[in-house]
């Protein structure tokens, strides 16, 4: 990709031509930047690679010694061990139901609890399907699953594990705050809240739920999908989105949006306004919108009335012109393909990830009972 094309892809900013030096050190040097580079260079990383320990590679069947694979004694030995171990296995399954699958729990501070048991530093606990983890006002905990990610649990939080099925890890956050760092592929980690389902489409986000069931997600890396009753929001990094019980996800907004913009947007999303009030709030949103608010305008296209949609279309068009294949008439009738094309033109991740997830999983209702 040429540098010119990269410049064209800049989603939110008109970039001055003289910042080539800032971008890649080319072009006319910026004396102030050169001074800063010279001064700050003393903090630069210089330590060579350490000697890393040997870590045994994962061994598959093909790496087993040839003789062991063909040993005639092996099947007989396996059968004998299986017969002897069967009663023990059956007994253990009866006495410890669903205790194997789940998340490792560790204490970070205070006295977090799994059900009634307080987690201490002496042992690693397991949070299995159906179990509840709670922290009080002084407690913090951490969940870890090798192939999924890590979740930091803040004080006054209550969460439950709903599913640990391969390909879909699902927990319910009843209240409190969690920070998630997910390295599983997009769409594999889902959090139910009382007001929306949160689907991880990236790496890191913070999710908060208050006692009324209202929620807020803030994405710090990758992107997150929020969904309830067919209403969906996509929250890329640098953006946030609130949810309300029964209403579902609100409209995502850039964290750099003005307070005026956010306040009017919150009224549009969650207040039972008259059509006149709604029009006034939309006028404020459109008037205060900047290029970085294209994310919000794109979402509003499918949330406002048909009359208002024309206004939103025109304003979004000013910031990010509709790409080839996207027609005004199509957008006004909410043509999904055209909306998705425009989303891509905003510079965000491929929305087809979300569309595939929607097709493959229909369990979008949030956890109802606490």
């Amino acid at each position, binding site marked *: 990709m040429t540098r010119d094309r*990269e*410049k064209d*892809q*800049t*989603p*939110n*900013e008109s*970039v*001055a031509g003289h*910042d080539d030096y*800032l*971008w*890649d050190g080319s072009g006319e040097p910026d004396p102030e930047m050169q001074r*800063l580079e010279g*001064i*700050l*260079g003393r*903090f630069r*990383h210089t*330590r060579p*690679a*350490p000697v*890393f*320990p*040997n870590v*045994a*590679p*994962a061994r598959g069947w093909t790496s087993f010694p040839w003789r062991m694979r063909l040993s005639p004694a092996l099947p007989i030995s396996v059968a004998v061990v299986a017969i002897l171990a069967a009663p023990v296995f059956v007994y253990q399954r009866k006495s410890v139901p669903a205790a194997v699958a789940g998340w490792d729990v560790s204490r970070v501070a205070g006295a977090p609890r799994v059900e009634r048991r307080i987690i201490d530093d002496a042992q690693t606990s397991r949070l299995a399907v159906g179990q509840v983890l709670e922290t009080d006002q002084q407690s*913090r905990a951490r969940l870890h699953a*090798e*192939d999924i990610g*890590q979740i*930091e649990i803040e004080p006054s939080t209550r969460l439950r594990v709903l599913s640990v099925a391969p390909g879909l890890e699902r927990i319910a956050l009843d209240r409190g705050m969690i*920070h998630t*760092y997910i*390295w599983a*592929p997009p769409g594999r980690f889902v959090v139910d809240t009382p007001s929306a389902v949160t689907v991880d489409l*990236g*790496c*890191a986000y913070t999710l*908060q739920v*208050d*006692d*009324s069931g*209202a*929620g*807020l997600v*803030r*994405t*710090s890396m*990758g*992107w997150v999908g929020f969904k309830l009753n067919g209403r969906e929001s996509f929250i*890329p*990094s640098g953006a*946030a989105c609130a949810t309300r019980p029964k209403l579902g996800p609100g409209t995502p907004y850039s*964290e750099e949006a003005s*307070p005026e913009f*956010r306040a009017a947007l919150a009224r549009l999303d969650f207040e039972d306004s008259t059509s006149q009030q709604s029009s006034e709030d939309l006028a404020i949103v459109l008037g205060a919108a900047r290029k970085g608010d294209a994310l919000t305008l794109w979402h509003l296209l499918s949330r406002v009335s048909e009359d208002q949609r024309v206004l939103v279309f025109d304003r979004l068009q000013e910031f990010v012109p509709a790409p080839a294949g996207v027609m005004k008439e199509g957008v006004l009738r909410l043509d999904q393909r055209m909306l998705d094309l425009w989303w891509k033109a905003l*510079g965000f*991740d491929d929305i087809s990830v979300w569309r595939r997830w929607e097709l493959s999983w229909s369990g979008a209702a949030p956890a109802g009972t606490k």
Partner: protein
Amino acid sequence: MAFSLGDTFDSLVATQGALPMREKCAPEALDDTSLVLAARDGDRAAFGRLYDRYARMVHGVLLARVPVDEVDDLVQDVFLIALRRLSTLRENDRFGAWLGAIARNLANDYYRHSSPQQQLEEEMSVQKIEAVNSGGDQQCSAVAILDTIRTLSETYRETLILRLVEGMTGPEIAARTGMTTGSVRVNLHRGMQQLRAALRSRARNDSPQQESQ
């Protein structure tokens, strides 16, 4: 204790920064993938090459968050954690984004495990080292400028440190962190604007004090 999110959300949003989104970098992703696969099979040289490729990025991510004299040790911790968990990485071409997440996580852990007193002592020890090492105004300036960068939002401080301290170009930052080139460009542009303004403001505040001395 009952709490409501209304105002809390705004303050939360206002006080916490955010990071840009990721993007696959096709040509280098192939190289990363083969190195990750080799490292997963026990090839330490391959992991060493990944270290060479990503150490500056990890260093910059940590430098944006933890005391200077802790950063080098934490860089090694990040790579040791990554080495142990390499078998769990499913998308090999996202090694950089995954490594960055480990680094940010470790930085968060650092502060969660430090008492306020420890944090204070650590900051003071850094200042002490700086004072001992300082051979002139430039040494003091370096600390002051780094402090100023750290006052910027998380979005900008990480990208600026990768550019100004680690000497990475915009395309390199995008390739290593998994951010889009557009996001990196915006972060650099806005971050630099904010840094210039903050440095000017700091200089104005310092001037009257110097005059009075």
